[in-house]
């Protein structure tokens, strides 16, 4: 029985960590879908999401009494969620704008060039964002303001789930549902799917491909920003380099799920998160960061198209 609880406990930890990877991985995979390009600066958008929250929270701290509640109660829950939600949505909007701007300034001029040029540029953008953040806001870790009270959720017996973990999981589920609606039910979502199948055909349908690409960057960046906020609620210390490791792990998650495949990225994120948690739990904490790379090597060797990926059809 204790074993079962223990496994369940690690599973919850893994899912909440995996949710973060999933949210970041979606941006990699969507951008890859429309541009066939890995945006190596994507992990830094996640970092900027956290910093946006860090800078925005003080503006609403009084109105929403950030840090003044010790626990969730039936009376204050809605109020707290409104405040945290507002900071999250605004951060998502800011990062969506930054993502669109980066594509416009750094990537679009290189679109007709060899793929390697834009890949190197993306690494440059990543370094720029990290160094700019260090320069403007300092290289030292910052304490992320408390948007929601973090405590153990009551009534779960021996299972220790923090409110912050629950927030991550619930917010991720909501975001995934919204994303699914956007991709499957809206005109821009349809254009995104069509663009990833055949850009030329999209053009001759009258689609302005640039707008669809901007939209994709906005969507991916907003999800990464949400991940940055959510993670900072759970471990409230942020720094300009915090995007590096999660960024790379989320990239592995996207490859694992099948790069370009949206459900695949979400699935891949969860798997990496759960694996990472279990590797630590069974006594190999030194493998915490290594496991993602081990997974990457295994997929590249045995199933380069990923779990849900399809073999790329020959271009006519």
């Amino acid at each position, binding site marked *: 029985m204790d074993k079962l609880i223990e496994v369940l406990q690690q599973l919850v930890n893994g899912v909440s960590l995996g949710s973060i990877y999933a949210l970041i991985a979606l941006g990699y995979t969507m951008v890859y879908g429309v541009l066939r390009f890995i945006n190596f600066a994507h992990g830094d958008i996640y970092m900027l999401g956290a910093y946006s929250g860090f800078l925005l929270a003080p503006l609403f701290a009084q109105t929403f009494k950030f840090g003044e509640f010790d626990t969730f109660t039936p009376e204050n829950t809605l109020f707290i969620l409104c405040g945290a939600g507002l900071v999250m949505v605004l951060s998502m909007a800011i990062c969506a704008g930054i993502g669109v701007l980066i594509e416009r300034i750094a990537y679009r001029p290189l679109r007709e060039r060899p793929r390697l040029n834009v890949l190197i540029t993306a690494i440059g953008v990543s370094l720029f964002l990290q160094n700019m953040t260090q320069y403007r806001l300092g290289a030292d870790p910052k304490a992320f303001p408390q948007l929601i009270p973090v405590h153990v959720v009551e009534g779960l017996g021996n299972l220790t789930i923090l409110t912050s973990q629950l927030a991550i999981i619930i917010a991720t589920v909501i975001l995934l549902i919204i994303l699914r609606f956007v991709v499957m039910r809206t005109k821009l979502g349809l254009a995104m*799917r069509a663009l990833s*199948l055949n850009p*030329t*055909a999209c053009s001759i349908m*009258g*689609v302005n491909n640039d707008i669809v690409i901007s939209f994709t960057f906005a969507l991916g960046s907003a999800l990464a920003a949400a991940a940055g906020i959510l993670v900072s609620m759970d471990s409230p210390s942020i720094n300009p380099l915090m995007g590096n490791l999660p960024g790379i792990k989320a990239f592995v998650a996207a490859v694992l799920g099948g790069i370009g495949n949206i459900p695949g990225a979400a699935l891949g994120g969860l798997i990496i998160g759960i694996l990472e948690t279990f590797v630590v739990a069974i006594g190999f904490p030194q493998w915490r960061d290594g496991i993602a790379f081990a997974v990457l090597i295994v997929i590249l060797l045995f199933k380069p198209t990923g779990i849900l990926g399809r073999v790329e059809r020959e271009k*006519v």
Partner: protein
Amino acid sequence: MLKSLMLEIQELEVAYGSIIALHRISLLVATGKIITLIGSNGAGKSTTLRSVSGLIRARRGKILFEGEEITNRAPHSIVGMGITQVPEGRMIFSNLTVLENLQMGAYRRKATAEIKKEYDHMFEIFPRLKEREKQVAGTLSGGEQQMLAIARALMSKPRFLMLDEPSLGIAPILVKTIFSKIVEINQQLGITILLVEQNANLALEISDYGYVLETGRIILEDKSAALRVNSLVKEAYLGG
């Protein structure tokens, strides 16, 4: 400007890097007609259509649509003017459903009620598509994919439709059907057509006027009926 001219290509030169694909070709498409452009592999037929659609830049020359210059405009704004094409190899969206493909065709149109009616219209013209509405387009047969590609292009409500080798890789019996649909689209919907074909026989049968393209140059043009009995055309394109 002459209202009876739908498309006018003047001295168009297009190159891929250092390889010149079109050597200053000129071509006219009269409103309401079916014009055909025939020529063998690599003659530059697709390149011509691509430059009209704005998919490749013209190095020299002009393209006019109803008297208005459209040379090197963005592809999406060219579609907005009423020009569309069924590209070589069909380029249907293989992972989208038949209906979603049609939806993509209507991308620039706003009125949803009208678009709904348009689906039904397409299914009237191509009944085979109706039965496969929810099917993923990549699973259709070659002929059905061609029908879908044509229907998808029509969804933008074009005034001018270009078709790039619609007979390519399709069973002969379906080719007949597709060509009769092309005539129907021209006559009943009043859409002007520029038809690119290697199957010169059929193309000259249904068209009013034809151009013969050879290695990037127009070497011959005439009424289609006249081209069919032209000895050069007979020898090179109609199998003697």
